């Protein structure tokens, strides 16, 4: 049976089917905390465990789906160009905020984990946790962490930001809608951006752009910052 399940069509179909079903479930349940990626992942894991199929076998097909992460990141460059026009007037403020916030997010992750004494492989896998998943996976590969852990934590970070981000920001006195959008995109990538679009169109646009910029900034700086912190604190 394993030979049969290792046919690429199994992994491909199971992945697409799980995503399709997650959409149907969302229509029915429609909760705020409902995240389609999370639900799809759980559905697939349940099927694999029930049929006693290991990840490698599933990934024989699923790898054809994840291949499209590469071109998707390039497509984000097109998205970035298209939306940049809309923040033109606030560009300087926007860039400074994303840069400072993104950098502090990244440094705090690595710093806390080093001081806690967790193995390096965990900090290497979590450094990019606020960045959109396709970029985060690439960053983790470069940092020699475990991309699967990154993907899981990135999704959880996004759900957290989506669920509590705007409430927390309001409590802390951040009421400017563009500021809220920028913060959601920087700290909680695409899943945070979905929330920002509920606040207003402009908050959503700022959030989507912040997601792209933070992805770029983290990709460019993470290898250097990680090495630097490892050398000076260890």
């Amino acid at each position, binding site marked *: 049976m394993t030979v049969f399940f290792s046919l690429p069509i199994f992994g491909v179909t199971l992945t697409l089917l799980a995503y399709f079903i997650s959409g149907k479930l969302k229509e029915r349940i429609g909760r705020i905390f409902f995240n389609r990626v999370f639900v799809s992942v759980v559905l*697939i894991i349940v099927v694999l465990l029930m049929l006693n199929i290991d990840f490698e076998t599933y990934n024989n097909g699923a790898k054809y789906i994840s291949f499209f992460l590469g071109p998707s990141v390039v497509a984000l460059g097109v998205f970035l160009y298209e939306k940049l026009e809309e923040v033109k007037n606030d560009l300087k403020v926007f860039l400074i905020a994303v840069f400072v916030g993104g950098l502090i997010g990244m440094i705090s992750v690595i710093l806390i984990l080093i001081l806690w004494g967790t193995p390096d492989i965990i900090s290497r896998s979590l450094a990019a946790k606020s960045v959109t998943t396709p970029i985060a996976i690439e960053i983790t590969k470069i940092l020699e962490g475990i991309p699967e852990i990154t993907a899981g934590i990135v999704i959880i970070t996004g759900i957290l930001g989506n669920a509590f981000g705007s409430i927390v920001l309001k409590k802390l006195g951040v009421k400017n809608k563009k500021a809220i959008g920028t913060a959601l995109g920087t700290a909680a990538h695409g899943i945070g951006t979905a929330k920002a679009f509920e606040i207003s169109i402009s908050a959503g646009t700022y959030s989507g752009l912040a997601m792209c910029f933070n992805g770029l900034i983290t990709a460019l700086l993470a290898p250097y910052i990680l090495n630097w912190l490892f050398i000076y604190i260890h």
Partner: protein
Amino acid sequence: MLKSLIYIFCFLFLGELIHYFLDVPIAGNIIGMLLIFLALFFKLIKLKDVKPASDFLVKYLVVFFIPYGVGLMVYANLIAEYWMPVTIVVLLSTLLSLYVTGAVYQKLDKK
């Protein structure tokens, strides 16, 4: 659609090529993202030539990383062992990044 997909793949290819030969610590697809942005910015290529495939890819972006999420099952033990620092780090650093970004933006925007 096909033309725009070829454009995207060519930029990805170029990015991977640069990554391979220059040996920079930046992934090929991120270099490709930068290059396509610059090409659009300096009007070397037209937006309408790349938009169809790019819109499609961005729309289904989340589907493409589902397999990585499933891969987490392989590392369940590692996560279970370090769930405490991981949980604290995710909460603290997300909050910090969220607040600092928002506060900096709001403060500078008023001036």
